[in-house]
């Protein structure tokens, strides 16, 4: 990779990039070593049953590299292959990387998870669900061993279902404005509970419920990145420096934080009402302000910054 390519990808949209483009832009030029490379052709054995094409990386790229000179392990989900879903192979790659981080103290003490996933791949639903459970356990065990795990979310598929739970298991979460996260996606809620519960075609509503700005304002994300590779790199570097320990005190603090949020915003019907409850004078303007103004707004809101995760 040349320096020219790197500087171009710096300003490139994270949302529109592929998993490999994100890694190429995020890591120092030439520093990336991939594990289980596509040439090893470790593919899903299950997709053919459904007449679906396989990918030589099964939609997950893993390896190690450097971020501004700092050694990191990385994993990136490809949201444009099967929605970045957790499946037997793609999940096991994440599990293997996280278990290695825990078991081998010579490996980098930071793992960056570039999540871009709608959750579990339904064609391999049980293997995918179990992979999520194994990933969450491996994240926790790595954290308990002193590894910092940072989730970066800003791709087309967001981080839903098992990916939403995985993100919230990490030491830190970085979200961009497009970085939607949650458990059940709006379309599924609409299908199951009706359009009056959640109108998935109402883009402004979907954005206000699941989007990066809402999450950041109530403490559901620890940092807000603008939608560029450079933005995510800068934010990841800051968060890597100050990760909470995985221990009883942290989880007691998270219990208190989540209970307080439920109490404070439990009666709110909309994101605008939540923002009013945060004493944001003009809730509607949250949507329109630029990233810089939003970052300043977050700085003035209590509770968005915490070590309770």
């Amino acid at each position, binding site marked *: 990779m040349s320096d020219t390519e790197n500087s171009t990808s710096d300003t490139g949209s994270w949302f529109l990039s592929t998993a490999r483009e994100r890694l190429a832009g995020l890591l120092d030029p030439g520093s990336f070593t991939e594990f289980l490379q596509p040439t090893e052709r470790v593919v899903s054995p*299950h997709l053919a049953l459904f007449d679906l094409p396989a990918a030589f990386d099964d939609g997950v790229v893993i390896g190690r590299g450097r971020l501004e000179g700092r050694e990191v392990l990385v994993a990136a989900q490809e949201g444009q292959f099967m929605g970045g879903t957790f499946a037997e192979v793609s999940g096991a790659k994440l599990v293997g990387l996280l278990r290695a981080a825990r078991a081998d103290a010579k*490996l980098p003490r930071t793992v960056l998870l570039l999540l871009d996933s709608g959750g579990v791949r339904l064609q391999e639903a049980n293997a995918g*669900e179990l992979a*999520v459970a194994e990933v969450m356990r491996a994240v926790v065990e790595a954290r308990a061993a002193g590894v910092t795990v940072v989730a970066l979310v800003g791709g087309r598929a967001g981080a839903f279902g098992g990916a939403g739970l995985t993100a919230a298991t990490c030491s830190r979460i970085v979200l961009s404005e497009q970085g939607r996260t949650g458990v059940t996606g709006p379309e599924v809620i609409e299908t199951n509970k009706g359009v009056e519960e959640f109108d998935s075609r109402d883009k402004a509503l979907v954005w206000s*419920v699941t989007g990066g700005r809402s999450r950041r304002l*109530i403490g559901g994300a620890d940092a807000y990145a603008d939608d560029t590779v450079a933005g995510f790199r800068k934010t990841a570097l800051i968060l890597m420096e100050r990760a909470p320990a995985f221990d009883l005190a942290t989880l007691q603090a998270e*219990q208190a934080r989540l209970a307080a949020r439920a109490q404070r915003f439990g009666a709110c019907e909309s994101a605008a009402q939540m923002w009013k409850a945060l004493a944001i004078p003009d809730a509607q303007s949250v949507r329109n302000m630029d990233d810089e103004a939003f970052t300043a707004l977050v700085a003035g809101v209590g509770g968005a910054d915490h070590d309770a995760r």
Partner: protein
Amino acid sequence: MTLAEMLAGLFPAGHDVVTRPDHLILGTGRRANGSSVEVIGIADGEALGIAGVLPLSARVLDVVAVGGSAPILVLVDTQGQLMSRRDEMLGLNEYLAHLTKCLLLASHGGHPTIGLNYGKAVAGAFLATALATDILVALPDASPAVMDLPSMARVTKLPIERLTELSKTTPVFSPGLASMVAVGAVAEVWDPAKPLADQLEATLAAVPTRDMRDELGAERGGRRLAADIALRVARQASGVHHA
């Protein structure tokens, strides 16, 4: 078997486990040797939302704070995570992950955790409860699933007939207990005709100290690749110390 019968069978020496009006199960059971098992759970297939998570996670954290090595038994009958715009807006993913982390903290801190699926166990609520334990067992009429076949047909845009046909031979995606056993999610199916207390003791004696679910899936043939791939990744990672 009713929940009351199940609890009586699990703890013939006595228990104070109650099912609250909000369908959460909380209490303590006594083992034959006089020591305690802390019990949490969800009853009646209730969906797990923010309101349900907080009392369960608080209880687990209390058990950890008290110390000791009392096991935690997680009884699971839930149709899945609550599907609600409000709970999503409040960050349900953080709440479910919090419960998972609390259970994993407990097991890390010396409290063996056992999941017992005796009814439904679906999707995100499955992850936050049954699949967050050291070992998961089930009763024969349990029905764990990621998603039911009609919903799966809708999302994958495949005819339900084809999915039904495929599900007969493909544990990797088909809903139900037999599939979850084959992929390694459920370690063992208990026999309701035999004393549950004895089976609980046997399971307590068999709690693994590391995550062996992928190895179990490989042994049973329902998930042949995962364990080997995770090992290969770890070997490659540790073999390359200079990028």
